[in-house]
């Protein structure tokens, strides 16, 4: 919805809606929009937006082993990947419920495009959706899916996911002021490389989760 509100004055109503329908990526669209708004050119806007979406590369490789079927089927399913569908589809131990991921996608798609249309239509009437606190929905929702990952109830608890999550949070905080949008999340994914070390881990290696 907020994309429609922000984009329609700059791009026009129909182009804003079509962009949401075809691109379907809030991060990329907001990144491009913020560059265009600040007077940046087309190439800069496009590269910033795609840079913001490079996080889908590690996400794609993460879901790949859980997929079945031929390359075409995997291609079509992969196109359904989005932040929320990735989070919804993930299961313990790095597996992914591809069916849940795939079903989450159309719901998000309708919400995203519908929200853009609503935003364009009521750009002035609705005002800022953050006034209703709706921008907290996603962080709390993501947290509800992160907690079982960090503190599993039916699996032996490991310090490693906690350390990785703390490290990723620290990376995001450190990089946000100095890199374009999207880059912090991408680099934070590299915290998962801690998994390259063999499992016998020393639980005392914490201390990376410094807060801002």
């Amino acid at each position: 919805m907020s994309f429609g509100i922000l984009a329609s004055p700059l791009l026009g109503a129909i182009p804003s809606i079509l962009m949401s329908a075809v691109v379907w990526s809030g991060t990329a669209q907001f990144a491009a929009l913020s560059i265009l708004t600040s007077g940046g050119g087309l190439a800069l806007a496009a590269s910033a937006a795609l840079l913001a979406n490079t996080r889908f590369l590690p996400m794609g490789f993460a879901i790949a082993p859980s997929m079945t079927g031929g390359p075409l089927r995997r291609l079509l399913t992969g196109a359904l990947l989005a932040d929320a569908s990735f989070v919804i589809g993930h299961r313990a131990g790095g597996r992914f419920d591809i069916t849940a991921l795939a079903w989450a996608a159309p719901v998000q798609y309708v919400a995203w495009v519908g929200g853009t249309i609503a935003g364009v239509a009521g750009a002035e009437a609705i005002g800022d959706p953050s006034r209703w606190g709706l921008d907290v929905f996603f962080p709390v929702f993501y947290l509800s899916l992160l907690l079982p990952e960090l503190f599993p109830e039916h699996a032996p608890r490991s310090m490693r996911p906690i350390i990785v999550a703390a490290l990723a949070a620290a990376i995001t905080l450190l990089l946000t002021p100095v890199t374009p949008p999207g880059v912090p999340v991408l680099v934070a994914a590299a915290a998962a490389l801690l998994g390259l070390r063999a499992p016998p881990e020393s639980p005392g290696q914490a201390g990376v989760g410094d807060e801002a």
Partner: protein
Amino acid sequence: MRTWVLTIVLAVGTVLLKTIGPVLAGGRQPPAPLTRVIALVAPALISALIVTGTFTAGRHLVIDARAAGLAVGAIALWLRMPAVLAMLLGAIVCALLRLVV
């Protein structure tokens, strides 16, 4: 014109980024170290998305009503409330704070 070029570039680029992994590495069980890394990609990315959605505004770090909303949501989740209820409570606290401040 500019908008159409941008739309097409973004659409094609985004689909490519999303599908390279599934097409190249789909259906195969990767070696053990890679499996451990993949298991940790989700906590890393989700954690980063939470930080981005709560403590940043553009390229600035901020602590605003969203932080309070997330804190309330976290407490609700810790008390084993359903996720939807935690989200609602977080949003209500966030909206109320914005009204007051």
